[in-house]
């Protein structure tokens, strides 16, 4: 089949990039017109992505690569290029779809903000850089887009710049993810000097790491894999660099949906999947990935149990779900991870946008002040419910199928990891049940006025919800035990995903997963859903535990003591050193020269003739010395 559209895939990021350029150049005055321009651009990208995916649905679609010379380093030319494979086609669809829906949703959500065109400009740049990241055919181009994605999320998290919390959260997001980025940068440097011909593109990576060639030693491979993983840890909010993600909730809610579903955090998982050849060459690195993923999954799910901010609960659930994806990757099942990324994108975007709808209605994010909203906002409640069930892994919603694939992979790797993943599933169902029941059922706990005025959001906001809800239900059927289309298709793209994943129907896995999610939901209903259940029931029974969870295991405080303060102290100490020792030495030299000068002025009368006499005497002595040397 011809691959016409794949050849122009570079247009996909170019549309939103142009929108960004136009919006920035025209400035703030553009207002809503700018928003429409940006939305139109994202629509174009989405259409293109669909066309690309459609033409690749056949079996024999070839990968397409295009590149231009970007930079000359020494004699080596580094390229900027793009590559279209089935994996990138899938990612393109996810990213552009979520971006489009977020754009439409924001048309209504942000309509009263005076900086609406700035907002849409940032979103457009964000989309463009994420699409660039997805399309990149080599690690350097990926790194460029990778950082741009980071800076866009920074800009959007800090969009409401007057709030000090937003400022702090934006700064934190940027700095914390940068730690990971440095790992990736060093990995790129290592690859550059160790790969044959300094190649950084994926095809070469595949050739080198897949052919068991001896180009790189085992320890070096592991080191590179771990450094790449460090980048993914930062971007995808894995432990211990997860701290920025919950704080990122300071941004406008549509942005949370974009960051959590399709762009920023997905980048980490995508990076590992894209460079999976390196990981496969190093079993140790894979184990580390699996362990970190599993730990993050259960750790974040536990924190999610005790959060009271509707968006923070969802944020921790994202961290936890990303842990799942990493676990799948670490278990060697890249296809399962991508599958979970795919379904997660839909239901997490759905949940965030629905949460935004709730916040839009009641102007608070604290679930203790909500309640009973289901009666006022039926559509929001229904769609949120579907998302929650999908996230909890209830069949036959999409979350069930993808989580199943992940669990099956984990079981193959190790029963312990599987156990952790099942417990996480239980926690997930529990906190989603808590969230749903506290927000939408029961009676209102907030101010009565607010409750009375709470009403369903306008169509621009609810239509994306409905679309996402439909996808949430349907998306899972691309990979079921009786339909192994997705892993086969991903593997068809050649590079990397040959052993597509475990697949197959595993009774233990299904039973455990369904049992965990139903048990979690039941528990949630018992504690929070029944009539007369108290919001703080859990807190009353186990105050210490809940407190630790509420404070997120004191990780932020720990980092403050371990890194932030020492840096400040070091800085001040060096400042004193600079002023006293370094500059002091300079002043000392200066002073001593001055003192010597003062001393000398005593010898001088100011009488020119005396000076002349002294000079004459000096000249005579010199002449005598030079002439006299001959006679010695």
């Amino acid at each position, binding site marked *: 089949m011809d691959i016409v559209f794949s050849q122009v895939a570079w247009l996909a990021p170019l549309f939103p990039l142009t929108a960004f350029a136009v919006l920035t150049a025209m400035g703030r005055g553009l207002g809503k017109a700018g928003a429409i321009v940006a939305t139109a651009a994202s629509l174009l990208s989405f259409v293109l992505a669909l066309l690309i995916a459609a033409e690749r649905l056949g079996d024999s679609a070839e990968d397409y690569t295009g590149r231009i010379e970007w930079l000359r380093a020494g004699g080596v030319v580094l390229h900027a290029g793009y590559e279209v494979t089935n994996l990138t086609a899938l990612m393109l669809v996810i990213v552009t779809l979520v971006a489009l829906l977020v754009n439409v949703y924001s048309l209504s959500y942000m309509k009263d903000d005076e900086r609406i065109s700035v907002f849409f400009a940032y979103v457009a740049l964000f989309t463009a850089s994420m699409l660039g990241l997805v399309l990149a055919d080599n690690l350097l181009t990926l790194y460029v887009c990778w950082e741009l994605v980071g800076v866009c999320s920074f800009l959007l998290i800090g969009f409401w710049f007057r709030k000090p919390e937003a400022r702090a959260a934006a700064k934190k997001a940027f700095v914390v993810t940068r730690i990971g980025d440095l790992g990736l940068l060093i990995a790129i440097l290592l690859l550059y000097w160790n790969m044959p011909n300094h190649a950084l593109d994926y095809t070469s990576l595949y050739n080198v790491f897949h052919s068991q060639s001896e180009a790189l030693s085992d320890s070096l491979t592991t080191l590179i894999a771990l450094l790449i993983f460090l980048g993914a840890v930062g971007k995808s909010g894995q432990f211990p660099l997860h701290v920025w993600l919950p704080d990122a909730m300071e941004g406008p809610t549509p942005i949370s949906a974009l960051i959590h579903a399709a762009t920023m955090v997905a980048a980490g998982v995508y990076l590992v999947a894209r460079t999976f050849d390196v990981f496969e060459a190093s079993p140790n690195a894979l184990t580390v990935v699996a362990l970190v993923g599993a730990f993050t999954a259960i750790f974040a799910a536990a924190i999610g149990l005790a959060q009271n901010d509707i968006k923070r609960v969802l944020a921790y659930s994202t961290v936890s779900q990303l842990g799942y994806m990493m676990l799948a990757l670490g278990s060697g099942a890249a296809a399962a991870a991508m599958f979970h990324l795919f379904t997660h994108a839909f239901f997490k975007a759905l949940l965030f946008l629905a949460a935004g709808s709730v916040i839009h209605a009641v102007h608070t994010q604290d679930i203790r002040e909500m309640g009973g909203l289901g009666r006022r906002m039926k559509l929001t409640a229904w769609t949120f419910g579907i998302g929650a069930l999908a996230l909890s892994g209830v069949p036959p919603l999409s979350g069930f199928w993808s989580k199943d694939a992940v669990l099956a992979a984990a079981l193959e790797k190790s029963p312990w990891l599987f156990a952790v993943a099942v417990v996480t599933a239980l926690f997930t169902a529990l906190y989603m049940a808590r969230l749903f029941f506290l927000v939408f059922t029961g009676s209102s706990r907030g101010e009565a006025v607010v409750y009375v005025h709470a009403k369903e959001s306008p169509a621009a906001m609810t239509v994306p919800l409905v679309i996402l809800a439909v996808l949430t239900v349907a998306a899972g059927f691309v990979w079921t035990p009786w339909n192994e289309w997705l892993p086969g298709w991903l593997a068809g793209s050649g590079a990397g995903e040959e052993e597509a994943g475990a697949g197959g129907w595993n009774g233990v896995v299904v039973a455990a997963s369904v049992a965990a999610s139903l048990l979690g939901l039941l528990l949630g209903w018992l504690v929070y859903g029944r009539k007369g259940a108290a919001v703080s029931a859990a807190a009353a029974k186990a105050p210490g535990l809940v407190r630790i969870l509420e404070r997120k295991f004191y990780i932020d405080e720990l980092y403050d003591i371990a890194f932030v303060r020492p840096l400040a102290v070091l800085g001040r100490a060096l400042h004193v050193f600079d002023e006293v020792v370094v500059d002091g030495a300079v002043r000392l030299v200066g002073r001593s020269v001055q003192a010597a000068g003062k001393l000398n002025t005593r010898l*001088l*009368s*100011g*009488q020119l*003739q005396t000076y*002349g006499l002294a000079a*004459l005497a000096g000249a005579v002595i010199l002449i005598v010395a030079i002439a006299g040397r001959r006679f010695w």
Partner: protein
Amino acid sequence: MTMLGSYLTLAAVLFCLGLYGVLTKRNAIIVLLSIELMLSAVNLNLVAFAKYGINASLRGQVFSLFTMTVAAAEAAVGIAVLISLYRRRATVNVDEFNELRR
């Protein structure tokens, strides 16, 4: 060759006279005149070497022309300075001028 010695001796005598004047005279005008004397001694040397030196050429004579020009300029500047000093201090006694001390 013998002629060179006499020229050099004359120049040396001139130079020493000038030097003596510069170092001992109290009147600034005399000091300036003595400086001119020293410069003339130098010019004499230049011309002498130009005529009788090892690499005899016109260059030394040309150079002495330069020196004369510079000397004239220098005398003009010196006297200008002296006049303005005289206006402020009403004296041309070099012992009174110790501005360099400050």
